């Protein structure tokens, strides 16, 4: 990769940091726990690196490490999204509406 491409990634990082700050500052403290589990699930995107490591068959070491990494990252993605949804389902605006929803 040439140096121009390196610099482009640094720009990308900076823009993502600014955007992230804007978006995440708007999350109310009410939803801070779901936010944490959501960003955790999203950072499971390291899967894109570990999938290649696990499937490229460069060496036994890299395949093994890749396999463990795929397992860990998938656990986070699947577990993180399930838990986030479980939490968000619980946040209700009104008591009456909530109890009606629970009726079959």
């Amino acid at each position: 990769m040439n140096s121009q491409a390196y610099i482009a990634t640094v720009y990308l990082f900076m823009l993502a940091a600014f955007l992230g700050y804007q978006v995440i500052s708007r999350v109310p403290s009410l939803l801070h726990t779901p936010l944490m589990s959501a960003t955790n699930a999203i950072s499971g995107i390291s899967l894109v690196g570990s999938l290649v490591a696990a499937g490229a068959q460069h060496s036994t070491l890299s395949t093994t490490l890749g396999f463990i990494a795929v397992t860990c990252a998938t656990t986070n993605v699947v577990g993180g999204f399930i838990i986030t949804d479980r939490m968000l389902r619980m946040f209700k605006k009104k008591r009456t509406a909530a109890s009606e929803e629970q009726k079959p």
Partner: protein
Amino acid sequence: MRYYLIEASYFLASILFILGLRGLSHPETARRGMHLAEFGMLMAIIGTLMHQEIVSYEWIIAGLLLGSAIGTGIGLWVPMTAMPQRTAFSHAFGALAAALVGISEHSLHGASLSKFTMGALGFDVLLGSLTTTGSLVAFAKLQGMLPGRPMTYKGQNIFNLSLLGVIVLAFVILIFHPGAAPLFYLMAVLSLIFGVLLVLPIGSADMPVVIALLNAYAGLASAAIGFAISNNVLIIAGTLDGGSGLILSIVMCRAMNRSITAVLFGAFGKVSETSTTVTEGTMRVANIEDLAPQLKYARQVVFVPGYGMATAQAQHAVRELSTALEDAGVTVKFAIHPVAGRMPGHMNVLLAEANIPYSQLYELEQINPDFTATDVAVVVGANDVVNPDARDNSSSPISGMPILEVDRAKEVVVLKRGSGKGFSGLENPLFTKPNCAMLYGDAKESLTQLAQAVLKD
């Protein structure tokens, strides 16, 4: 063609992640946002599977299946009260995954790495390793496998900083000699040790900051991997995760009036444990029979939940009582301190689980002016966040920390397991104030009895 398809999937995923997080700015749009993010993740995975370097799918499928099984298990069966532990554990997993990808990359390319790539890889492995072990220690503390109090020894900070110095030195040498594999592994191992030593001296009360900080590290490790393998979606998602963790840790620090360095190196609670200068006043003990009518005929009752509510699993009992009071015509509110519990937003999730609508949950700034108009404030297992010393006593270790000013209510009832101190080990002058009464015993039982007494009257 294949290249463009893969990149398109990453591009789509990046947009969907950002839209997903934007959805979290309101509880009503949050679930839809998360579905977008889930779809984005699926696209990115499918895109990656088309990568030309992938020649065999056995280990990939095995890892995906195993991870999905573990993830589904954790996702469905972890109770809401255990959310801080679960979060710490998942930070360990995320950081480990990032560190392992970095190690695998280094083992393949080693000496041929450019300075830029080696720098990113080193950063990834350093942060990834220390976050893995640090999160595991945090998990063990929250789960009660390790004592929650700070574990300190003499010269700890000096030792830790020297260790960090050695790690950084190894990192710098590696940038100029990327092929030095033994040095690379030494750096990884030392970072693992450093992670343990970093979190051991931090007490349970500071856990909200530590969890948020470890969240940031795990995210930054992922972003670093993105730089190393020049993958844009990794950089974006990792930066969002890192930024979110950083913002949360700043919010938590502000809510405790402490700096991040004080949290990391201060060993909070250790000092006050030894200085037990007891200024014992008389505490008034409340009983259910008198309290129930007082609550029932109040105009406004504010509940203040703390970590004690989580340990006693009392959130449903709180709901029972609050419903009984509302049916009797009482205005019921809930006051949430940002650092109540062991992670950001911990109390909100527990109360939501107990089916308490979020329109009844109030933040510190919103509720504090309201306490003077409150007839009874019910403190359920909170201590330091209602300690008036933080406001009145400038020599208190928690001086300047914003508190919920329950002592301004006409009457305060504190539900407490026993007459012991809070996690910080500080005396709480609230308990001896004339308008404060103590209700000792298991919070869940007390609340259930109160609810029954209110309904019976």
